């Protein structure tokens, strides 16, 4: 166990800090640009300097650095401290770019990877449909080749960021004769065209983090397909997930716990601060055990990455584990809120890695702790994955049969 980063890396940290000192915030005329424009200007320089888009080849607009998770972690830490724009977030960098790099045509990489990692071009994902949640094989959106273009009709759901995305990467049934998975293709679609109708999907918290997307004779060129016709399901599955930021994940849980402690200090029980109530303390203590376990699991996974080792079983558990902890935190928060538990969340959405401050935020958190499970596949799907891939238990019969 050596929790220091070591001299070599501390020196690297110094280089990162020096770069940031010289380059952020922007100065002069550039300081007058919009937030988004500033981010683009800065990201270009950071990529040139080798600090962002590190795993992307230079040919496609990245900085093509050797894999080094600890350097990545240091960059995230230092950029975070300086409030400087980091790697462009979102589904485009997380899923589309790795897919293109792995399976795309050369011209596709040339065209899309650079702008996407820069944050200039944004994407949304068209996988889920009403009626096909975790069962993608049953999807119904159809694409027909008419002349030299695809004509697409159908409906997608749970499409995060669809209203501002430039493009959608999308699973579409193009071979109606083929069975289940075999008839699906992976198409790219320009979102700025008639025939696309994006409707915000309002959540019970009152916010709309997702959309429904209706596709009505939507068109896309014949060669905006990744992989071959009918290979879409495979292409979507071979996508290497973006290197998971296990530390960031655990920090968010820790921040939430600290927020809960704060709430317990400010709430009252029988005239005393709730944090003095032995029953509350025991529940907080139980959550602390789970939270710290999750935190140190994050370190374990980072270490495994550093050594190029497979983190093993633990990596498949992150999602369910953090969902479980968020549930526990949310439930205790509701108890601490007391009468305020009858208030409306007033359209407060989920907070990324931050703890809510007021009652409406906690109420939104209370409800969102359910939504979290849904966004990443329901808890039961996670349990299937852990049981089958993690523990090696035999496949489910019903699912097996349908494959």
């Amino acid at each position, binding site marked *: 166990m050596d929790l220091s980063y070591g001299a070599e890396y501390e020196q690297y940290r110094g280089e990162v800090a020096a770069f940031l000192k010289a380059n952020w915030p922007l100065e002069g005329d550039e300081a007058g640009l919009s937030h988004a424009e500033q981010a683009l200007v800065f990201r270009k320089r950071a990529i040139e300097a080798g600090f962002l888009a590190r795993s992307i080849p230079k040919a496609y607009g990245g900085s093509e650095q050797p894999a080094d998770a600890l350097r990545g972690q240091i960059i995230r830490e230092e950029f975070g401290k300086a409030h400087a724009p980091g790697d462009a977030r979102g589904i485009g960098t997380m899923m589309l770019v790795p897919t293109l790099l792995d399976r795309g045509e050369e011209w596709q990489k040339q065209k899309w990877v650079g702008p996407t990692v820069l944050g200039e071009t944004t994407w949304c994902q068209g996988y889920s449909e009403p009626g*096909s949640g975790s069962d993608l094989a*049953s999807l119904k959106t159809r694409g027909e080749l008419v002349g030299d273009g695809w004509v697409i009709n159908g409906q997608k759901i749970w499409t995060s960021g669809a209203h501002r995305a430039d493009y959608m990467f999308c699973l579409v049934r193009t071979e109606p004769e083929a069975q289940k998975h075999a008839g699906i293709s992976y198409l790219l679609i320009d979102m700025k065209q008639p025939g696309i109708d994006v409707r915000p999907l309002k959540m*019970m918290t*009152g916010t709309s983090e997702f959309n429904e997307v209706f596709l009505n004779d939507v068109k896309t060129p014949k060669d905006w397909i990744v992989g071959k016709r009918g290979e879409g399901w495979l292409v979507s599955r071979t996508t290497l997930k973006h290197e998971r930021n296990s530390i960031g994940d655990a920090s968010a849980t820790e921040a939430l716990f600290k927020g809960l402690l704060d709430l317990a200090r400010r709430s009252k029980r029988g005239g005393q601060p709730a944090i003095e109530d032995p029953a509350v303390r025991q529940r907080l203590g139980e959550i602390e055990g789970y939270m710290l376990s999750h935190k140190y699991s994050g370190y374990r996974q980072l270490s495994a990455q550093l050594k190029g080792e497979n983190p093993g079983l633990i990596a498949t558990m992150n999602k369910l584990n953090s969902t479980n902890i968020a549930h526990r935190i949310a439930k205790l928060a509701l108890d601490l809120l*007391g009468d305020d538990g009858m208030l409306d969340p007033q359209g407060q959405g989920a907070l990324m890695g931050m703890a809510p401050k007021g009652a409406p935020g906690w109420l939104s958190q209370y409800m969102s702790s359910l*939504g979290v499970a849904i966004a990443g596949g*329901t808890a*039961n799907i996670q349990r299937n994955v852990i049981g089958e891939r993690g523990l090696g238990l035999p496949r489910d019969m019903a699912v097996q*049969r349908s494959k």
Partner: protein
Amino acid sequence: MDFGLTEEQQLLQQTVAGFLENECPPVRVREIFESEDGFDETLWKGMLELGLGGLAIPEEYGGAGLEILDLALVAETLGAAATPGPFLGHALAGLAIAAGGSDAQKQRWLPALATGDRLGSVALVGEDGGWLPEEWSLAPGAALTGKQRFVPFAHQADLIVVGTAGGGLSVVERGAPGLEVSAYPGVDRTRRVCEVGFSSTPAEALESGAGAADRLRDAGLVLLAADALGGASRCVEMSVEYAKTREQFGVKIGSFQALKHQLADMAVEVEPCRGLVWYAAHAMDHVPEEAAHAAAVAKAHLTDRFMQVGRDTVEAHGGIGFTWESDVQVWFKRAMFDRAFLGQPAVHRERAAADW
């Protein structure tokens, strides 16, 4: 020996359920849920025509003279349908006056509450919290000054029974000078709550308010428990129904063992509670020495069950259960109301513990 409902009681429940099926289907609930003030005159009038305004008000004052159990059975049925409206506060106001008013006070207020010509509500918690009569802090007197929170449908109410320091009860009428009602952003849009401010507002103390406060508290706890029972049962039904309809991987999702067992666990959480609610209601009229304990346990247990089952119902519906569009949210948010209104489960468990 009959630990069950009389034919009249079953008929009462069926009548109310039948009425709600026609007049308050989910689509109607959603309209009222989305509306400005959450109050639907037609629906409420219909309920009043069924006599729901004065079920437990004595016959001599124009009510039906029924028992708390009858009232609870109606509350359960309303809860199952997530019925929007002022039933809870109105019923409690009537009970409070019937229990604590002088004959003159009863004559003055109860008949109009029974018919529903006037709408009643209750204001039982102040800005610093504390729902229990011994925690009430608003100074009593001929004029009240201060604030009460979470007053159901105060924006529509004609009279409000207010809890005062020392466990007394006072009545404030609509239009009284210094009375200020502001809508509150409540989570449960089927039961709107307001903040009510008093500034030297004239009020009339109920003659034996102090004696009536405990009965008011217990009745409130029982009605919330009953509402939670109805709501939780409906949640189980909705989830089971969804599992029987929705398909994945070519089969109904209800055939998947994991979901099946979750649904079984939900049912086991809820169904055995029916007798607990019945007994708590029954005790209020027939076993007074057990009433406070039974009401406290029922409120704590049922509102916890409803909240848990509400969460499970969201999960059982997958992503769609988390949307505004889904009806699930209506029951989920009613569970949040039932659990917090009149004090959280922990408060009442601690009270019940005093009897061990």
